[in-house]
């Protein structure tokens, strides 16, 4: 049966209701196939026609919010980003993302991932902290400096990389590819001065030392963030730091607004309301 000719698909879904079940189990549902259907479209069809109590997370349905990460036919993917035809079979096997506790049906408990993320201070850390809250001007940043971290800033925190990582599968203390990739995103941001603060966490067991470049995180990332690359680049920075060979980078300076130049046709900015 060629992938383009089937009229129905079977959804094999891992279901678990903590109020009724003691353990997750598989359920199968057969729904009509509509050409161009994504896995997420199919889940809505299942909910509409077969299982009204099926639970999952989704939001934007276009691959930018990171809500619908699931294990689809054995690989961690976004349900909204996956065409049913690209799976190569008329059976769609959907399970919740592994390496996270299952709250219900296809909903994983992502709080541990975000706790690890928060521990690595995923925001600009500067000595002049007031500048971030009450900016007096822009930060200088060249296109080259932007390129150093831009790729890693595309992360949508979907958790697919964490599900694919073999180290995160066993080691509870390992931060995981997403937090570590984001730590690198901020370390290489020229506006940031928080390397020493993050190093406190990165030097120990939560750091990138348990990554052995299996590369699964980069393979499954739906946005091409390549956390494996970020982690290896970060290891280089940390080793150079240990050997005291790391060039200390000054955080980007603030570009003061031009003074004394007043163009009458440009109105004054309105007063701040926040």
């Amino acid at each position, binding site marked *: 049966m060629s992938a383009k000719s089937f009229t129905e698909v079977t959804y094999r879904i891992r279901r678990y209701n903590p109020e009724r079940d003691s353990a997750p189990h598989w359920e199968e549902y057969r729904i009509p196939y509509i050409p161009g259907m994504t896995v997420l479209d199919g889940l809505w069809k299942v909910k509409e026609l077969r299982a009204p109590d099926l639970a999952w997370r989704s939001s934007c349905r276009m691959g930018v919010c990171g809500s619908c990460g699931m294990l689809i036919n054995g690989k961690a993917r976004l349900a909204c980003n996956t065409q049913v035809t690209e799976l190569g079979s008329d059976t769609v096997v959907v399970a919740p993302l592994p390496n996270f506790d299952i709250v219900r049906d296809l909903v994983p408990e992502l709080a541990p991932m975000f706790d690890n993320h928060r521990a690595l201070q995923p925001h600009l850390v500067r000595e002049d902290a007031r500048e971030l809250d009450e900016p007096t001007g822009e930060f200088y940043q060249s296109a080259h400096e932007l390129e150093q971290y831009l790729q890693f800033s595309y992360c949508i925190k979907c958790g697919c990389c964490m599900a694919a990582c073999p*180290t995160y599968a066993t*080691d*509870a203390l390992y931060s995981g590819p997403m937090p570590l990739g984001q730590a690198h995103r901020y370390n290489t941001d020229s506006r940031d001065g928080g390397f020493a603060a993050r190093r406190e966490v*990165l*030097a120990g067991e939560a*750091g990138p*030392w348990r990554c052995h470049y299996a590369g699964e995180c980069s393979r499954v990332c739906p946005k091409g963030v390549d956390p494996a690359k970020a982690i290896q680049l970060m*290891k280089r920075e940390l080793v150079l730091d*240990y050997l005291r060979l790391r060039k200390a980078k000054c955080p980007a300076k603030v570009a003061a607004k031009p003074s004394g130049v007043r163009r009458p046709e440009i109105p004054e900015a309105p007063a701040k309301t926040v």
Partner: protein
Amino acid sequence: MMRDQKLWTWHLAAGAVILVFLGLHMTVMHLDKIVLLASVNPAGGHPIDWQNVLARGKSAAFAVTYVVLLGAALFHGLYGLRNILFELDPARGLKRAISAVLLIVGIGLFVVGTWAAIASHTLAKAM
């Protein structure tokens, strides 16, 4: 508590040292018929025959390389084993026990091996 940032850097450095010295050791021991280094197998035959062991024992350079290789390989191997065991997420007390056992085994075997290198060198010079 030694931090992983430090230990991992030394793990890599030890790996580089082992690459050179164990490469030589493997060439002498297991590639002796392909890479013909007559100087280390002067009596012909197998590298593990006593005459060849004696010939290598006479050289102080060999003794030194054995001790360096021993130290690097014990650190590299036992740290690697520690990593694999720790990744299986044992309890904190068990982690401390594992670290202690591996440290003791490592130091113990290093002492044994260094004694053997020095004693066999002395023995070889006398024979």
